């Protein structure tokens, strides 16, 4: 829930779910503000100073600032703790000097700001000594290089930091405690916030329409399988939101969401490609959606990592 004084609407989780459902049913597109609103904002509510909340949230809600997530690096994908971008203390200027490279930054080429982790204590262990920074992308020393995704979208970016200076008020949470601060966001990325059922309900509806135009019994069976999984995802989400509202939800459960919606999205689009037959290769909403769907099992923690989390934290299997 996003308070009105920060540019929000004070909506409950249930109201938000309903909004999402209507948003997608109306055929509305993905939002460029998505990563800011769903990943950064919850962290700012939890860890931001009043000044940060006032400065950042209303502009984010109004889409005046567009925020990109600066997690991954060339050597730190699934292994997020391997981050090597670093920040050096500059007491004189009262801030930090950032150096390093972030990559696979979704929508980085269109964004104005980036939130990311930088190593502030190189002597500390992997998960320790990281700090969470908020950086305007027009800061001197920051270069953004956009590159193309599988589906032809130019939205990915490398972001290079060459002694880029940021002041202390751009540190979110405590210095050296960026990992703990970031994990709050990772949890919401995997779970409910990133993938409301509405998007899949709409896709299933479109798939059914496609199949009505002509399909075999085998194909209709596949369509219903996807339709059923969307229905299951919707009901699972309702059950889960009840748990969140009651405060009984287990955070590792968000890995179940992520696994399910990402596999479902691929399967749903594969079924559409099957229905389209030789026309499947032609550029269009289904083929583009198919390519887009293949990113789901990779980003926001690969599904291999998610299955580890499910096995270890929900089933209690031994780590090693």
């Amino acid at each position: 829930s996003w308070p009105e004084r920060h540019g929000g609407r004070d909506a409950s989780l249930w109201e938000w779910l309903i909004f999402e459902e209507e948003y997608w049913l109306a055929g509305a597109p993905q939002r460029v503000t998505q990563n800011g609103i769903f990943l950064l904002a919850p962290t700012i509510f939890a860890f931001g100073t009043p000044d940060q909340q006032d400065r950042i949230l209303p502009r984010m809600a109004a889409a005046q600032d567009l925020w990109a997530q600066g997690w991954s690096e060339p050597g730190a994908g699934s292994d997020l703790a391997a981050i090597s971008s670093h920040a050096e203390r500059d007491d004189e200027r009262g801030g930090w000097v950032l150096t390093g490279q972030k990559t696979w930054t979704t929508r980085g080429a269109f964004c104005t700001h980036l939130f990311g982790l930088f190593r502030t204590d190189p002597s500390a262990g992997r998960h320790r000594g990281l700090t969470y920074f908020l950086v305007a992308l027009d800061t001197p020393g920051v270069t953004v290089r956009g590159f193309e995704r599988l589906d032809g979208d130019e939205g990915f970016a490398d972001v290079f930091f060459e002694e880029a200076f940021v002041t202390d008020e751009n540190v979110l949470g405590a210095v050296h405690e960026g990992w703990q601060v970031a994990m709050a966001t990772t949890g919401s990325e995997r779970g409910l916030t990133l993938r409301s059922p509405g998007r899949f309900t709409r896709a299933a509806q479109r798939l059914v329409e496609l199949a009505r135009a002509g399909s075999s019994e085998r194909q209709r069976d596949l369509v219903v399988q996807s339709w059923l999984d969307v229905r299951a995802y919707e009901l699972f989400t309702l059950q889960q939101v009840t748990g969140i509202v009651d405060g009984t939800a287990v955070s590792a459960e968000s890995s179940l969401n992520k696994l399910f919606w990402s596999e479902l999205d691929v399967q749903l689009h594969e079924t559409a490609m099957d229905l389209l037959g030789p026309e499947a290769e032609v550029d269009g909403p289904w083929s583009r959606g198919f390519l887009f769907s293949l990113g789901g099992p990779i980003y926001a923690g690969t599904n291999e990592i998610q299955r580890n989390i499910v096995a270890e934290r929900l089933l209690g299997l031994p780590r090693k």
Partner: protein
Amino acid sequence: MRFESSDSAVALRDATRALLTAEVTPAVVRAGWPDGDLGTVRTVWRKLADSGVIGALVPEQSDGLGLDEEALVPTLERIGHSGLPLPVVETIAVAAPAMLWHARLGDVVSGDAVVAIAQPSLREESPLLAFGQDCDLALVLGEDDLRLYERSELTLEPAASIDGARRMARIVAMDGGVVLADDPAAVASAWLRGVLGTAAVLVGLSERMLDMTVEYVKQREQFGVPVGSFQAIKHALAAALLSLRFAHPPVLAAGWALATQAPDAAVQVSAAKALASEAALRIARTAIQCHGAIAYTTEYDLHLFAKRAWAMAPSWGDAAWHRRSIAAHLGL
């Protein structure tokens, strides 16, 4: 807005779980198999009757609990989880609420009489009757009527099920019988309750198989470590949990849809059965594979639950049957 079971559902489930945990040991499940002591099974059944479960869907004035399908589903899951070898769904969810004016209702609610239900079969002249060998009554779902037969009115021939505890029979001949209801709505309602109940039992069986496997792979060591520490095992079991956790809410929702007579109740019940059947088949396969050789022996208990799942997943319409019915609803 909330998605959770009603207080009566939770209360009935918890009470029944306590009873099942104490009474339905694997020895009781094995007692359902040929040469087993069926008496021990019937004893448990009477204790369940004492707790009121068998009359869950029967009005209070007829000595039932007066509950609805929503309240019953979690309890059927627990009975499925226990492996109790009796026609649980048939008796509790389908027959009892259809027998309200029938003289034998009291015997059913008191646990003295169990009811088997004939299933459609490829050999239509001799339908299959799960738990038929030892039932007291048998219900036949016709095109537009429900008929109840005394065991003595049936000529049965034993048929071996993959799950020996199902004490399968074929109906060779029927004589007499009483019409319980003669409208298609009653048949449809009986059918949906049977489908829903079977889905609930399959959820319980799936949970049982998954729990057993998780426990086993934690303690079984190979190469000096628990086999549950291997990523292949972890990922297989994560996928199993996924299919269980996403099949469960639709089963609960279908119970609510039937209880509230939602317009799309039939679709929701089909969705529940399709998802629960697929989950159970997948989890049976995963459970056996993750156990390894021990799962392949009948001395170990896993097969008791896997065989029940293989028998029940195709009964009351298999997953593909229910998907076809959903396809029709979607205009496909």
